[in-house]
């Protein structure tokens, strides 16, 4: 019985296609939209492995000792490939992520159990604090735990505009997305901004903002307490292109 092994043929093609798609993500540097860059080495090994498996399965296509029919399993493997073709990779939108509630966004990746503060760079009293990808999390952390120290300081920060329905007419959140492992664990975090001309801002637009740190009372519904919250009194907004690295990778 020498019939062509249809299952093996399809499986070999699927393995090869998967390897090539990941290779494409590597070459077009879109991989960082899906997973944390530290996973790249492991994924490169996975591509090699997929290619090896594809070749080894290919050799079974004409062997008579194993025959595997085409099954629903094969069709299932087409699903990710199809979806990847239909929806080209891009950054997640706040609409998908905003289900944590505004407080979660503002408090963001910050937890209230840090005993030790990491030293913050460039904090000489008269200097502008420039918030970048590297220090974003530690500065957000510091702003929340030692708000009083920072009141009146000047800050410059890059982010995208997020407008939550519960915010006042002058308020928006200057937000970033943080990815710890893959896109599925992405979290939005940001700084509340007060800006009289907020209506000129488009949600999702990337901007660089300069402003002064102040503090506001905030009623935390979950704990039924009023807390002091840092915010930015914005005096300058500049529209910019989206940065090459859209996520922040802690």
């Amino acid at each position, binding site marked *: 019985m020498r019939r062509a092994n249809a299952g093996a043929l399809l499986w070999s093609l699927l393995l090869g296609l998967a390897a090539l798609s*990941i290779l494409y993500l590597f070459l077009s540097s879109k991989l960082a*939209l899906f997973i944390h860059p530290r996973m790249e080495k492991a994924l490169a090994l996975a591509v090699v492995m997929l290619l090896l498996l594809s070749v080894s399965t290919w050799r079974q296509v004409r062997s008579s000792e194993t025959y595997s029919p085409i099954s629903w399993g094969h069709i*299932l493997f087409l699903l990710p490939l199809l979806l990847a073709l239909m929806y080209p990779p891009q950054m997640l939108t706040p609409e*998908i992520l905003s289900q944590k509630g505004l407080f979660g966004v503002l408090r963001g990746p910050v937890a209230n159990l840090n005993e030790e503060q990491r030293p913050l760079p460039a904090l000489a009293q008269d200097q502008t604090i420039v918030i970048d990808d590297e220090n974003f999390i530690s500065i957000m952390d510091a702003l929340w735990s030692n708000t009083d120290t920072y009141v009146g300081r000047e800050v410059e920060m890059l982010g995208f505009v997020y407008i939550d329905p519960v915010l006042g007419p002058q308020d928006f959140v200057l937000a970033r997305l943080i990815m710890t492992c893959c896109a599925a664990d992405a979290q939005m975090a940001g700084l509340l901004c007060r800006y009289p001309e907020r209506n000129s801002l488009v949600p999702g637009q990337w901007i660089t903002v300069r402003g002064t740190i102040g503090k506001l009372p905030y009623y935390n519904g979950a704990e039924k307490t009023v807390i002091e919250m840092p915010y930015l009194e914005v005096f300058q907004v500049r529209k910019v292109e989206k940065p090459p690295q859209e996520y922040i990778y802690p």
Partner: protein
Amino acid sequence: MRLREDRALHVTRNGFWVLLMLVLLGSGLVWIGSARAGFLQGFTMMFLGILLEALPFVLLGALISSLVHLHLNADAVAHMLPKNPQLGICAAALLGFLVPVCECAIVPITRSLVRKGVPLGMAVAFLLAVPIVNPIVLASTYYAFAGAWGVVLLRALCGFLVAVFVGDYLGSRLKDHYPARNTRFHETEEWEHGHSHNRPPANGGLTAVRRLLEHTSEEFFGVGRYLIIGAALSAALQTLLPRQWLAAVGQSNLLSVVALMFLAYGLSLCSEADAFIARTFVGHFTGGSILAFLVLGPMLDLKGTLLLTDAFSGTFVRRLAATTFAAVLALGLLANCFGF
């Protein structure tokens, strides 16, 4: 011949359920997609993210389990096992320090160990403990909780205790039950007479490497499809579940534990990432519920359950899930009572 028929039946039945789930999932996605703009885009990014993140580990798991299958002799395994069953279970739960693999890789490895005659109790302890009690996961927990050693130690200790308890309980309860399922194509007969003649035939058909690759490829085909369904369900849940509903029960001693266990099960996060998510619950949820989240997630989640149903019998998976759930729930409540 009989074996083959049974197998055909099993595949058809399984295939039916999976197809039904797929149709439901697909129609659900289209329905929601038409209602909320950008939903399918977000879903795709998360779905592919989970797949890409899990892929290297699933391939590693398939490779290791193929190595175990082809090159580990059942008699040798029997020699290595400690004679005392309780001691064996404890040792198995600590093996994560030697094989630090996460929950995607552990299921096929456990199955091939069971087939090599490792007692069920030890296999269960291994399956449950390794994704928690291993240096990589504990290090990420340490980092996520800003150096709070208490959380790290508590997570490791509770993971160890639950694994040993469930392993011991199931090991004695399911003494005469053989849980490993035969699934892969032509190997079926081979399994049945057991042990050691898995070496390449002397008439020089396949080299060891080719055989290993072929086996890995089949193993990956078996595991991969469940991974895809699991990733799709998790991504759907992630995009749809409003977190405010959960926050409403955050301070209740019982409901908070149940809610976060449900979340840990449904989200199927990688055990290296879940501590970073758990940290965001601090202050909004009770301590016991966060502990339950950290312990249950790596042991049992949606993606893992699908992998398990492929590898093991239904009876075994149901018992395993029920016992683990009960143990973690009890632990979470206990921690809340003592005010962790």
